[in-house]
């Protein structure tokens, strides 16, 4: 029985090079902060890796701060830049309505606990931020804005955001972008974009779980979340996770099969629309990441579809669930104008470098039965 994985936006298989790198480094003794031979040897591996990451995203090696996750990178950036701004009398935080929870929730926390004024930029029906509305916010509040954080590409629909326009509009205001989904999937240049900060994660690109990076502009000093040994520009203390870092760098050098992924994605969309003419492909009119397709199947509930697909050996995603594990209507789709009901009838299929035509054919062979049963079981 095949086991089909179409949830590469959640996590993707570890690449052979990353697996080799982490396995080797796990056997090497030495704390990268130690001054002796063992320490220096591990430190060299970490710094080699830092240079690899820096080269991939066009930044200085010293601008790479390793973290334990993309979420941590987002938290350091948003809270740090906010606190830095607040010390200069700026208390406004601007984010988009479609950010990942790793931005939405820290932003809400800053509002609830740290005196931030939170402003959310709306998106169009295709899920792209409304630049006119952002301009109005900047015109009105510019001198009070501590940080603007807009994601590079959305994790649920794959829609790309106009980050260079955002940076141009922002002028001197620090801009952070969550580029967790974009890294390695499409061109991404920290220096060209002119960003203050950018978040990355290893496991979305074939690296291990539990390692990420914050790219933070040189000489930008922000308050830390973790205090301790003073590693990573004293912004992120904690012994550096050398095995995961070298594996992150190994994965970053792998080639993403962009043409193959786009072809599969397009074929999938074509066939699904043929099978079910009433489906909605969310964000269909704008540029999107190569691998992500978000489909609304009217008259269904996505948690039912997920169960039925899972039972048919297909792993797809319903988007986010709350802490109780209950499937929630996606805030991204709601922001794009969906109703609660249609937002809860949507699934994300995300393809990766290891996806094949056989995977695609298998999914298409089980979908009719899944959708028919899903419609029959729909109670909403």
């Amino acid at each position, binding site marked *: 029985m095949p086991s089909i994985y179409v949830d590469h936006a959640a996590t993707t298989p570890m690449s052979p090079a990353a697996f080799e790198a982490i396995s080797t480094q796990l056997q090497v003794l030495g704390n990268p902060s130690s001054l002796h031979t063992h320490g220096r040897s591990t430190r060299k591996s970490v710094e080699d890796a830092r240079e690899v990451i820096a080269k991939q995203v066009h930044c200085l090696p010293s601008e790479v701060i390793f973290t334990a996750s993309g979420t941590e990178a987002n938290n350091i950036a948003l809270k740090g830049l906010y606190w830095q701004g607040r010390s200069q009398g700026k208390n406004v935080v601007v984010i988009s309505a479609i950010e990942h929870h790793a931005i939405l929730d820290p932003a809400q926390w800053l509002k609830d606990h740290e005196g931030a004024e939170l402003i959310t930029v709306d998106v169009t029906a295709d899920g792209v931020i409304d630049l006119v509305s952002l301009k109005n916010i900047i015109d009105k509040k510019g001198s009070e804005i501590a940080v603007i954080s807009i994601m590079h590409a959305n994790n649920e629909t794959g829609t790309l955001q106009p980050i260079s326009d955002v940076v141009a509009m922002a002028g001197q205001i620090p801009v952070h972008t969550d580029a967790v989904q974009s890294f390695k999937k499409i061109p991404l240049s920290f220096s060209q974009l002119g960003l203050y900060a950018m978040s990355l994660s290893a496991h979305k690109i074939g690296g291990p779980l539990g390692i990420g990076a914050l790219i933070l502009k040189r000489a930008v000093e922000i308050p830390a979340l973790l205090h301790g040994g003073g590693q990573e520009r004293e912004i992120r203390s904690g012994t550096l996770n050398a095995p995961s870092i070298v594996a992150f760098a190994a994965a970053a050098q792998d080639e993403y099969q962009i043409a193959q992924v786009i072809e599969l994605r397009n074929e999938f969309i074509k066939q699904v629309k043929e099978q079910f003419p009433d489906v909605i492909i969310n964000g269909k009119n704008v540029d999107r990441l190569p691998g992500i397709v978000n489909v609304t199947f009217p008259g269904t509930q996505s948690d039912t579809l997920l169960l039925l697909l899972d039972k048919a050996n297909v792993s797809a995603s319903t988007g986010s669930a709350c802490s109780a594990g209950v499937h929630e209507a996606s805030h991204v789709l709601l922001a794009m104008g969906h109703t609660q009901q249609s937002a809860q009838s949507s699934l994300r299929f995300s393809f990766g470098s290891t996806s094949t035509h056989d995977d695609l054919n298998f999914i298409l062979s089980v979908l009719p039965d899944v959708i028919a049963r899903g419609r029959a*079981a729909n*109670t909403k």
Partner: protein
Amino acid sequence: MKLIAAMSGGVDSAVAAARAVEAGHDVIGVHLALAANPQKYRSGARGCCTIEDSHDARRAADVIGIPFYIWDMAEEFHDGVVEDFLAEYAAGRTPNPCLRCNEKIKFAAVLDRARSMGFDGVVTGHYARTQISENGKTLHRAVDHAKDQSYVLSVLTIEQIAGAIFPLGDTTKVDIRKEAEARGLAVAQKPDSHDICFVPSGDNAGWLRDRLGSETGPIVDQDGNKIGEHKGAYTYTIGQRKGLGLTVPTADGSPRFVLKIEPVTNTVVVGAREELAITTMRGERPVWCGPKVTDKEQAGFVQIRAHGAALPCTYHFDGTLLVANLSEPLLGLATGQAMVIYDGDRVVGSATICQTQ
């Protein structure tokens, strides 16, 4: 069979799911999220469907080796169980929400959804048995009478019983805990839940007061003389003696009991103990768990509380109401409770008590 196992995160439903798997069924574990804003932790025997409970259920499913999902039934639960509970109290009756949950959620919303998705039935950790006889699949008491839950399942129709699997009915609770231990289920010693799950504080009167208000009203004797004041009629139960706060003593000094709650006039009527005695009860909206009851008088037993005694009676159906005539008088019976008729260990059917005399 392809089955959905409803897993609360407790020991019973975990063992029930494990037994269903062992019996050769294709089982999927489902935890029902019944509260829109669940609490993080459970405190002792109170509450359920906390986030901690859903984690316990997930862990049990993993140990058993079955897929696990969470189904959001918060809206259905609120509309069908919580609102019903409030409406019944507001009308001066005493409802049983567990029974309503079985009727409207576990063996209706969940079973219907399961069947539409291609499953054959729902497994639960209820202590009850089913049997196949010439009358089809019938519902019976559990072997462990102290834990027997057939009372709260008596609202299931034949159709629903056909889709219900109760793997624990032949075992005592003590043995279920031992079995859970042997199966490596971490919930083996988790405390039982007793109270109403959506009243996590355990303070029913306070919970009702917050939602229904606490409009004071008269406490009167049977002649209509006002002898006290109550703090919300629905917080009283028929047969209640304590907490009435009456200062006018009876002529002979005998205690007074709540006889009647009249929601329209917001009045609580009290009187002597013997006034509570009833010998006949009638129930509306009957449900038959097997062959239909006819107008022919039958001998059997009636039970009026989840773990109450089975009272000898004769019963019949008058075409509208289920009628039970008790062999011995009974003191203090609130309307709104379920009257459940048994033929030995078999559940004949049930109805909601609407009249007593």
